[in-house]
């Protein structure tokens, strides 16, 4: 499967009479965009705003971040199972509006998290302070159940990103990157002397506000399976995960998956990247056993010499991570784990809720309990009152001057468990 990713660099986003990309500027016809995403009776109103890097602006609470993309050549369309039919994606050509992002905000539950600050201290922790963000502000009808609300907001984000992505269809990309993974036997034969690597890609799948979708299917209902890495670049995996802002994978991160991109970077040089095994994170312990057994079996069957495993979330998923590690290592296959930590303010407490001596190679994406003060912002988009009920905040964490004292776990993407962030560890 071969995908050409054509990146169109977006240096500014503005409202204008026509939705188009011209000289690196994305112009948006606001009325047309609102018409495109509207029509869901579950939402009382939808509004849109734009914020830029460096602006004194805060978005709260962020539900999802999505990158505008469009399929230019090849089967299927972006976001299969939601926006497009379920044709297999991941081959042909896709254009990306690099530097633009759709951000959805909505007060689905009363306790809140998910902050993007476009400037100041908080901006250093979120990758989405560097993108020009088209913010979709959704208000539900009265008494809308949380499930319905989440789904409605999720769809607005996907529709908005699809609509904006189409503006890049006939634009010549500034940069083209080619990614290719061959069918298994050919891929193994292509680099016979390099170690064969599989990425075990764990998806949050515990229930309400903790879900992920694969080609439209709720990931808690899958058994582990193979996916070509390029399918992910076309939006085959969608986030419905609205809690734990710091270490959830927004749809944008799935589409720009840094572990997959890095494995491709080394592909053919010092490793042979065979592809991804997606698996879920379950509440029921027997389901954990089944999924980890299946993952280990599949990884062995595919002939991997080594595996990278990432988890998504806190607590319960640590058990799935450890089971995957243990069972894969038992088969004589080396593993490296990627996670973040809840190690207390000073970082000295036990980081994970589970462990195994076989987990002897672990990459940390940061300590989510670290405390930060976010300065007041001139402009707050979304629900400013939500700042007082931040899940990772303290009683009275919203100070009279508008600044917020909270743990970095409230910041979208701060401790991304696939490493889509800025934190790293140093030993002294």
């Amino acid at each position, binding site marked *: 499967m071969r995908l050409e990713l054509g990146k169109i660099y977006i240096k500014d986003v503005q409202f204008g009479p026509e939705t188009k990309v011209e000289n690196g500027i994305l112009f948006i016809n606001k009325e047309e965009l609102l018409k495109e995403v509207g029509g869901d009776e579950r939402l009382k109103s939808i509004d849109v705003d734009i914020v830029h890097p460096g602006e004194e602006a805060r978005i709260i609470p962020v539900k999802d971040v999505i990158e505008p993309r469009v399929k230019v050549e090849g089967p299927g369309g972006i976001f299969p199972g939601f926006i497009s039919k379920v044709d297999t994606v991941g081959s042909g050509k896709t254009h990306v509006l690099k530097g633009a992002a759709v951000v959805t905000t909505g007060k689905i539950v009363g306790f809140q998290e998910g902050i993007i600050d476009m400037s100041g201290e908080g901006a250093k922790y979120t990758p989405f302070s560097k993108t020009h963000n088209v913010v979709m502000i959704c208000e539900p009808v009265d008494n809308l159940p949380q499930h319905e609300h989440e789904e409605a907001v999720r769809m607005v984000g996907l529709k908005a990103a699809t609509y904006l992505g189409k503006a890049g269809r006939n634009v010549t990309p500034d940069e083209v990157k080619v990614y290719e993974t061959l069918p298994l036997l050919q891929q193994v034969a292509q680099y016979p002397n390099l170690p064969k690597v599989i990425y075990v890609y764990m998806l949050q799948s515990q229930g309400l506000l903790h879900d992920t979708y694969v080609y439209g299917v709720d990931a808690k209902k899958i058994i582990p399976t193979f996916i070509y890495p390029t399918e992910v670049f076309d939006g085959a995996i969608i986030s419905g995960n609205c809690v734990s802002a710091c270490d959830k994978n927004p749809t944008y991160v799935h589409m720009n998956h840094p572990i997959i991109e890095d494995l491709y970077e080394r592909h053919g040089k010092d490793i042979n990247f065979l592809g991804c095994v997606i698996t879920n994170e379950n509440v029921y312990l027997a389901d954990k056993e089944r999924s980890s057994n299946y993952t280990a079996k599949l990884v062995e069957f595919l002939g991997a010499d080594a595996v990278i495993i990432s988890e998504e979330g806190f607590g319960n998923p640590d058990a799935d991570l450890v089971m995957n590690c243990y069972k894969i290592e038992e088969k004589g296959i080396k593993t490296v784990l990627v996670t973040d930590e*809840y190690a207390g303010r000073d970082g000295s407490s036990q980081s994970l809720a589970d462990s195994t001596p076989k987990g002897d190679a672990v990459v940390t994406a940061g300590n989510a309990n670290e405390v930060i003060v976010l300065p007041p912002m001139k402009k707050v988009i979304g629900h400013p009152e939500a700042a007082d009920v931040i899940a990772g905040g303290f009683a009275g964490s919203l100070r009279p001057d508008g600044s917020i004292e909270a743990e970095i776990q409230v910041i979208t993407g701060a401790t991304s468990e696939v490493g889509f962030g800025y934190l790293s560890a140093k030993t002294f």
Partner: protein
Amino acid sequence: MEKVIIVTNNDMALEKFKDKHQVEFVDGKLLDVLYKVRDYIHKHHKLLTHPLMGSIKPNQTPYKSVALSLKKSDELDVDSLMYIEKSIETAENLIKNKPPREWPENVLYDFKVIDFDLIYNALNR
């Protein structure tokens, strides 16, 4: 599914499960639920769901529901004991680090809905 024991301090879970399952309602904090679950494990009931389900931290949500087998085994299930001990340790650490705050009624309701949904999905999969 067959009848199970649900230990919970979430009255929504009590209300929705009481006709179908054996619900042990704990009038206490999240940690009291976990301690009660540990008691059941020592009486040879097997843990069915992860005590730290959900990404909402134990020092954020005040509610927790955990399912155990109704039937007792002949022996103590060591895996169950390991899960609950590690979960208690993690929860105690986080709560000590930053104690739970007081939440308004509407927020408490949302925590109940999510706790219930997660355990409901796990049992009706």
